[in-house]
């Protein structure tokens, strides 16, 4: 069996601060296969963007991979030097669609010049070949090819996000990491962007990691997913596993609190408390403080990600993963904590 496209194993990422090492990601594991769309969901500060940065070797200066591995087609890349990242990974293997496209384009360069520079750094394309390829990509993402010579400010918000997508696809990478690619856009524009992202999967063999706080985007557009809470992966599996049979309290409660416009009368859930800041070695479930079903065990050690119902692809990090569903059903029926809608 060949190695998966991307395999993250027991990844721990810390930031050194004056108060000691802050653990942004603790023992995260997941895999992404070829032409798979993988969603990484969680609330602000859960560590999802830190993972995105680590995957392109772009952690902030005080951030470092403390332990664990990131493997691209079986090759460990987490300890690559800046030169190796540039020559071997960025743009042609993994490319990034950042959250704010406006800030990630050079405002003083024509788009075509910025594209040619990328092409000439990473490939031996001629200027003409590079421009042809860029025009082709503009068409794919629904922009007029003759606009490649314009400057970034000439594109509207939705359009500049598509320019970024065109750049991310430019060298035909195997994996695209999209970090909140549509958060700054209105819903109609967001849907237009995802219409193009759908097309990519159909036409090329591209894989994507979609990082977002919006679980509905993941359910609609991804094959598999992971839910993160305060540095830990709570649950991972196919989107159907997590929708039909969520087994981590956080993935259950997160879905309950998510509004659904197609079911506007459903009662919305809330999750009390706020995610903790983790320092140094983590020896607890980061959700324990907010979890209605936490027991002593939950604050004694970090729960490992383990298969659920013997399914190796559906894994949860909860000591009570086999009984959570019953606990949830039990507490939901009489609704003792108010919210009877009167």
């Amino acid at each position, binding site marked *: 069996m060949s190695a998966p496209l991307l395999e993250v194993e027991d990844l721990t990422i810390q930031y050194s601060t004056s108060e000691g090492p802050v653990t942004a990601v603790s023992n995260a594991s997941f895999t992404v296969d070829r032409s798979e769309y993988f969603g990484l969901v969680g*609330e*602000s500060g859960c560590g999802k963007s830190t993972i995105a940065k680590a995957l392109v070797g772009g952690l902030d200066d005080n951030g470092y991979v403390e332990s664990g591995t990131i493997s691209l087609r079986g090759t460990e890349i987490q300890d690559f030097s800046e030169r190796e990242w540039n020559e071997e990974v960025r743009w042609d293997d993994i490319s990034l669609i950042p959250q704010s496209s406006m800030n990630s384009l050079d405002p003083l360069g024509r788009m075509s010049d910025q594209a040619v520079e990328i092409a000439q750094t990473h490939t031996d394309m001629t200027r003409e070949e590079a421009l042809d390829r860029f025009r082709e990509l503009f068409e794919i993402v*629904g922009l007029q090819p003759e606009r490649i010579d314009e400057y970034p400010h000439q594109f*509207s*918000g*939705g*359009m500049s996000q598509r320019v970024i997508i065109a750049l991310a696809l430019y060298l035909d990478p195997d994996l695209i990491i999209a970090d909140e690619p549509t958060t700054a856009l*209105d*819903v*109609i*524009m*967001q*849907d*237009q962007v*995802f*219409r193009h992202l*759908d097309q990519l999967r159909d036409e090329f063999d591209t894989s994507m990691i979609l990082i977002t*706080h*919006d*679980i*509905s*985007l993941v*359910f*609609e557009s991804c094959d598999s997913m992971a839910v993160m809470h305060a540095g830990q992966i709570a649950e991972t599996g196919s*989107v*159907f596993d997590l*929708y039909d049979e969520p087994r981590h309290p956080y993935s259950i*409660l*997160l*879905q309950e*609190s*998510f*509004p*659904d*416009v*197609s079911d*506007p*009368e459903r009662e*919305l*859930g*809330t*999750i009390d408390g*706020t995610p903790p800041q983790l320092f140094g070695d983590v020896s607890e479930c980061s959700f324990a403080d907010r979890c209605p079903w936490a027991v002593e065990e939950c604050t004694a050690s970090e729960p490992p990600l383990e298969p659920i119902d013997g399914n190796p692809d559906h894994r949860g990090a909860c000591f009570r993963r086999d009984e959570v569903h019953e606990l949830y059903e039990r507490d939901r029926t009489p609704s003792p904590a108010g919210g009877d809608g009167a």
Partner: protein
Amino acid sequence: MSADRPVLEIDNLQKYFTKKQSFLDTVLRRDPELVQAVDGISFDLDDNEVVGVIGESGCGKTTLLMTLLGLYEKSGGDVRLHGKSYDEFTKTEQREFYRSVQVIFQDPFDSLDPKKTVEQILRIPLKVHDMDDQDRRIREALEMAELRPPERYLDQYPDSLSGGEKQRVSIARALVLEPEVILADEPVSMLDVSTQASILKLLSNLIQEQDVSMIYISHDLSTVSYICDTINVMYLGRIVERAPTLELLQDPKHPYSQALINAIPVPNPHADRQRTQLEGSTPDPIGIGEGCRFRDRCPERMDVCEKTPAFLEVEPGRRTACHLHYDHEAYEERKEVVPSKEH
């Protein structure tokens, strides 16, 4: 004062900006171009009612809010608080207006002074309006915003509070003056989903329990059903549809409302929602003349859409401005025979 008069009446409100002219424009004496940010908006706000104004960025909803607050001078139309026009306010009434109309801003991280404690933040409006019994009022406002017990929060600085708690402080700050109208500008859009619902519930309870009404401005249709009684959908400065919230979500009449609702992702992997068929984005409302403003993007466009559609009742309690729902020529003829007052 009659009891059934709406708290706030917005009547054909307009706010136009003029575009900055270049030197050449001045030399050639060109007329300045008008930006029709708010172009003839009318609706009433009743006691204990929450009216939503929904639209994408650039539709004019924030301009509407600023004009209602009196921060922008209106270009036309009228706004009346308890039947009294903004234009006729005396100095005292003006002050009273700034007490009885309060605002909750979108970004709790930005709208609280980081150098002041919660108590100081709540005391400022009380001092400005010279109100008595300040300590009691501050405590009550914190209680109402479910920051309990108030003692725990009085001496805290915004930095030490979570996003949800900060937004509760903003809500307490609005409540401390016992307002009659609250203008809420996307009050939950910066919050995580797990706290969103609790803020929505809090606002909705306050409306029911206190004597206060609210205009709720948002781009997000998925949360409006938890707070709004009625929704106005805005596109390029005009209201294109008005309906009770659930009716709008389940059966939108205007093609723009339909597109807006259909584009919202559904949190269910089994759902088979079709991606939007709309192309392009909302244009700027500059120098746009006659006609339906959505016509260039509308999948149902007809010749008659070059004429501005009237905002008419399509079902009891529901209005829309769309030629699909009435016969424009017949309507125009009838209007000439019996001049009727459109609201």
